[in-house]
């Protein structure tokens, strides 16, 4: 998230949310933890910075990845101290490396701290790890929780950007852009997290054991809560995409509009058809709601009288569906484990 892309209302709201969480976590850490947590949090936060400078090559691709932070902090320190540490890392990043900026800091703390520490860690990591630790469980837990944490964070970025209205990116396009990218990032993050966690667990099991011994969160009810949360996200996504923009589906609309006016010569037409052909090839959901009626509409006519647009809804749902698919995979994995 960046300052340039948000409105004061969104920035302020997220600031308030993150500040509230920081206050709450500070109180929790102060009341519940022993004194040793304070230097531990500080030094582990610095470790995240240092670890981000160590890269590894991603198998099969030419690129390299590194540790992001949120998930491993939650695993090592627990949700409250983990959240505070992640927030402090983001504060330093925003001030020194200008990552995001000060107004977007609230958004960034929420997206990168809240979701890994308070959703992915208690509902996924702890659940998959269960009561008895094993290499496989730790691996699966790290991967799944990192993916889900980043998917939710990315979805949150989309919502914040769309609500701010500084960019023209419609909700559905942005969701389709962000979620798959963050699926890849989530897998890389999961791999890095699991590699480090597994090493630490083998070398000094007490560090990992110490954090995961407090009774795991109640099994079934928590999964219901989590799936409910996802369902809410999907429903909101589907409904909000109707209202995401008053002039929906900009690219196609503008292509039609320029093509529809008489002044343009035939040479232009080729470009437009090429463009729309290319767009159809690129787009996952080329079947947009109002496309068939394009040719009859005069240039200045309002696009659609009703706000509800089926094409948009469908594509808006895809973003949520991607996340839901992950949840489904997770549920499947959990069920298999239970049967064993």
């Amino acid at each position: 998230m960046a300052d340039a892309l948000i409105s004061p209302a969104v920035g302020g709201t997220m600031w308030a949310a993150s500040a509230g969480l920081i206050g709450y976590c500070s109180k929790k850490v102060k009341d519940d933890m022993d004194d040793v947590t304070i230097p531990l949090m500080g030094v582990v936060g610095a470790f995240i910075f240092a670890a981000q400078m160590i890269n590894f090559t991603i198998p099969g691709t030419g690129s390299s990845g590194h540790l992001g932070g949120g998930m491993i902090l939650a695993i090592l320190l627990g949700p409250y101290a983990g959240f505070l540490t992640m927030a402090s890392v983001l504060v330093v990043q925003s001030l020194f490396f200008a990552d995001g900026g000060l107004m977007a800091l609230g958004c960034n703390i929420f997206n990168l701290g809240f979701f890994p520490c308070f959703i992915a860690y208690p509902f996924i990591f702890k659940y998959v790890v269960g009561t008895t630790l094993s290499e496989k469980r730790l691996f699966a837990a790290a991967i799944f929780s990192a993916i889900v944490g980043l998917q939710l964070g990315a979805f949150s970025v989309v919502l914040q950007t769309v609500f701010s209205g500084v960019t023209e990116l419609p909700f559905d396009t942005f969701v389709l852009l962000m979620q798959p990218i963050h699926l890849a990032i989530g897998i890389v993050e999961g791999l890095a997290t699991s590699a480090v966690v597994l090493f630490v667990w083998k070398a000094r099991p007490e560090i990992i054991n110490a954090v995961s011994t407090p009774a795991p969160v109640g099994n079934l009810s928590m999964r219901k809560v989590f799936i409910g949360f996802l369902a809410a996200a999907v429903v909101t996504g589907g409904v909000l995409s109707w209202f995401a923009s008053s002039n929906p589906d900009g690219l196609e609309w503008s292509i039609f509009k320029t093509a529809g006016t008489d002044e343009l010569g035939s040479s232009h037409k080729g470009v437009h058809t090429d463009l729309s052909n290319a767009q159809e090839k690129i787009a996952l959901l080329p079947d947009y709601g109002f496309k068939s009626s394009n040719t009859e509409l005069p240039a200045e006519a309002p696009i659609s009288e009703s706000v509800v647009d089926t094409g948009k809804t469908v594509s808006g749902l895809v973003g949520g569906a991607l996340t839901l698919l992950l949840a489904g995979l997770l549920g499947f994995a959990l069920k298999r484990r239970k049967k064993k």
Partner: protein
Amino acid sequence: MVGVHGFNGYVCPDRNAVDMAKLDKHFFDIGYMDTLSAQQTPIHQLDPRAKLITSLVFITTVISFGKYEISALIPYFVYPVFLGAMGNIPPVYLLKKLLLVSPFAVMIGIFNPLIDRDILISLGGIGISGGWVSFVSVLIRFTLTVGAALTLIAVTGFNAVCMALDKLGTPRVFVVQLIFLYRYVFVLVGEAARMVRARSLRTFEGGGSGIKTYGPLVGHLLLRTMDRAQRIYMAMCCRGFDGEIRILKPLRFGPREIGFTVGWSALFILMRIYNVPALMGSVIVGFIK
């Protein structure tokens, strides 16, 4: 062996070597910001709270403009330029940092011209679409807000910002966390840099950079980090740490600070209400007529 590696490195640029150079630069960079903030100028001597609050007012007013606004945003450059000039901050360095972090805003903003193609302004027969206008607006906002954040830290220093946060009511645990983090970033980043260099010097053409090496490498760093935390904790206990953190606060919010904060904030709000370049333009045009 060393000779062979050196030879290799010259013939085909090794990714590890590039990594190393980048790493050292990154590390050096945090230290440079710290050096800048240790100067003694009138701006550096202001109470950090004044600079923090003023910068927040600045950023809020800048991002509150409509998405097609360009001209009214221009006068806002006066604040970061003033801070940078008074605070003796090298402008080229700041611009380089800005360019380094611009890709995200550019990537998202570049969709505006593609999507919003309604002609908004006509300049000598050439129509400029709303998308381009709002894209330029996004870029200006980005430069202003990020520039303000960077100059703030360069003329204030991180520890002073933390003290301002503490005085302004941020939970003490979080403030202490920030101070701790900042203190040990230098130590641990140096350690990580040495580890990466050691890895590059012992491998060829990107070997050893896979996930199999990565886990133990970072894992060891983590274990050392946790041992360090234990030693720090014992050292703190030896010096009388009882769970309560005390911060020495020689801060003073005097008339200069009040003047700085109120003066600049008033200017930001005035520039928000009146479009200064448009006013100036109409005055000049009226004068010519």
